[in-house]
């Protein structure tokens, strides 16, 4: 962090100012002139919170994608299919047992199992041929999409939110002051906050596992140079399988999350594949903190964009990607 500030003082200053403005917009009571210019604070705060929670969901999808890419150089374009598969599994489990938590566990296990099968049966045979692997993942995504359409039909599914998470809570953020002088607080759905917190916990846990454990050390070494790592006697194939399982399982969890606060239908796989592509392009391929930053930026841009410039929301996302590619082609937080 300090090195970044030393090397790019101008960019650091711009980032700090932007962050300060954002924090002021969130915490301060807006003066009347501002409300006239850009609308009610409640709308803005809702967009920001939706953006952050959507960013949490994007992070869950993209972190698995970027982890797999970082270690195995495998652009898994079937990642969106794993997301949708996890969502359908989660729906089936929660509809039959009524347990939301159980649906996460089973979705994780089953998608991780699919990931293991993919790695063992398919990708191990074509190691090092990344372009061919990518083609195979495209073929697999088509096959998976059609199989899921066959099994689940074209309907929309939504996973039932558990009763203890239903309903909004008051956040200690003032959206407006009533004429009587009484402050109005922001009300926000509890389930979204819980999901966001969970994704933060998962992100921190992944960061700790990667940076503070032996397995994490092996994975990081594999990202840097898998040939030398294999030469030192590490069973790299086992590491590959484990990482692929973890990445796929995360996509499955994300599917349950997405099915809870959005909905599941054919086409969602492409949407989330695109989202994770943009997130990792912006954040930097193979970097977990990059995925977090990219997910936050894209989530916020998408939600704020859809509130303030509704017809061009997707263009904002795209422009961010173009800007990052033009200034820093390797992504914001990639090391190279």
């Amino acid at each position: 962090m300090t090195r970044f500030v030393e090397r790019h003082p101008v960019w650091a200053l711009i980032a700090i100012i932007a962050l300060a403005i954002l924090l002021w917009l969130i915490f301060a009571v807006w003066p009347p002139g501002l409300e006239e210019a850009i609308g009610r604070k409640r709308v803005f705060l809702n967009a920001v919170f939706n953006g952050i929670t959507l960013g949490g969901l994007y992070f869950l999808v993209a972190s698995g994608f970027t982890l797999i890419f970082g270690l195995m150089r495998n652009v898994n374009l079937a990642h969106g299919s794993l997301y949708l598969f996890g969502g359908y599994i989660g729906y089936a489990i929660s509809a039959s047992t009524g347990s939301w938590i159980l649906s996460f566990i089973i979705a994780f296990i089953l998608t991780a199992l699919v990931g293991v099968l993919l790695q063992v049966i398919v990708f191990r045979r074509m190691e090092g041929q990344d372009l061919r692997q990518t083609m195979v993942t495209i073929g697999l995504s088509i096959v998976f999409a059609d199989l899921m359409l066959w099994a689940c039909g074209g309907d929309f599914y939504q996973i039932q939110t558990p009763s203890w998470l239903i309903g909004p809570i008051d956040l200690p953020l003032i959206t407006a002051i009533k004429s009587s002088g009484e402050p109005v607080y922001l009300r926000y759905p509890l389930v979204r906050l819980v999901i966001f917190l969970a994704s933060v916990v998962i992100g921190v846990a992944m960061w700790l596992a990667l940076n503070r454990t032996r397995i994490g050390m092996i994975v990081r070494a594999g990202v840097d140079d898998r040939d030398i790592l294999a030469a030192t006697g590490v069973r790299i194939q086992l590491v590959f399988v484990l990482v692929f399982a973890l990445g796929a399982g995360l996509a499955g969890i994300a599917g349950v999350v997405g099915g809870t606060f959005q909905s599941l239908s054919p086409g969602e796989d492409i949407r989330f594949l695109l989202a994770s592509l943009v997130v990792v392009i912006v954040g930097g391929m193979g970097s977990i903190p990059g995925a977090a930053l990219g997910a936050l930026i894209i989530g916020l841009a998408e939600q704020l964009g859809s509130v303030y410039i509704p017809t061009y929301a997707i263009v904002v996302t795209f422009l961010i990607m173009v800007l990052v590619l033009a200034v820093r082609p390797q992504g914001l937080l990639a090391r190279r």
Partner: protein
Amino acid sequence: MSVTHDARVQLLPAATAQRPAIRTWPEIDNPAAWIVAVILLIMPLIANGFFLIEIFATTMILGTIALSLMLLAGYAGMVSLMQLTIAGFAAYMVAVFGTSDNANISLGWPWWLAVPMALVLATLFGTLGGALAVRTEGIYTIMITLAIGAAFYYFTNQNWAIFNGHTGINNVATPRFWGVNWRADIPFYYVVLGTAALCYFAVQYISRAPFGLALQGVRDNPRRMAALGFNVNAHRIAAYAVASFIAALAGVLQVWNYRQISPGSVSVGACIDILIIAIVGGITRPIGPYIGALIFVLLRTFALDFLVEIGLDGNRFRLIIGLGFLAIVFWSSDGVIGLWQRWRNGVNESKRPATPRPGGGHGHG
């Protein structure tokens, strides 16, 4: 850097290295090519309107879009998933500048003004996208071009001022001049055939022109080409410009064919279909995309009846496409023409076991 570079070489086994330095067109002394040409020319005598347009014209339009991908992937080693997006952009531009039912959007220009405008804009669009994509290497190119294609799809869905949202633009006018309705089955077939042949021979020519040879050098070893004084990125961007123009031509034909354009025609699935067509056909020679397109169109048209015939669910067409694509990627890195070449080599070798392996390159068809 080196990883992605290796991958590119592995996907394209040194077909060009074996190609003898032919200075003439390889088609001239190939009887099969002449037979195919004659059959295509007299096709309106044999086939009815359905086959002429729904099968052959559609094949040649899709094949031409895939040809632009083949030019990029085969000669420059860049797999671009946005070729269909460029074609769709050109199609939209024809609809926007030309005449259609959506009078508040279409400007009503005559076709000879709208089409060049569409071609220029689409080529610009593709070149800009290419300039973005060449900032990264190998597999990153796939991701960025896919992101561009998907962004365009969502944009057309959301934008009502120019692209008319998800309903798209309907009843696009087609050209009529010299007393001919050029969208009538037979004239349109010849327009498509002429354009496809033009693009095919242009790509065939480029592959042997200095520019194409430099491009193949860039594909095989960018660092050495840079050391030799070639501007690697300029060559790549120029390849994108040429490919964009070819895709744009096909896009104009596509909008005339269907007389309408909507976001569904530029969806991500359709972008991936173009990749499938090119890979299934084979991306080492320009004929590959057309063979792939023929297989794709035949499957798309008849798979439903066929599946019902053998007692399966007719809606599983995409499953067959996906499985076929997987099989091709698994067993042949050069698509159907690669399989055919291998089979022919096998036959030749069993006939003359003593001779060395015949050069895989010289063209047929």
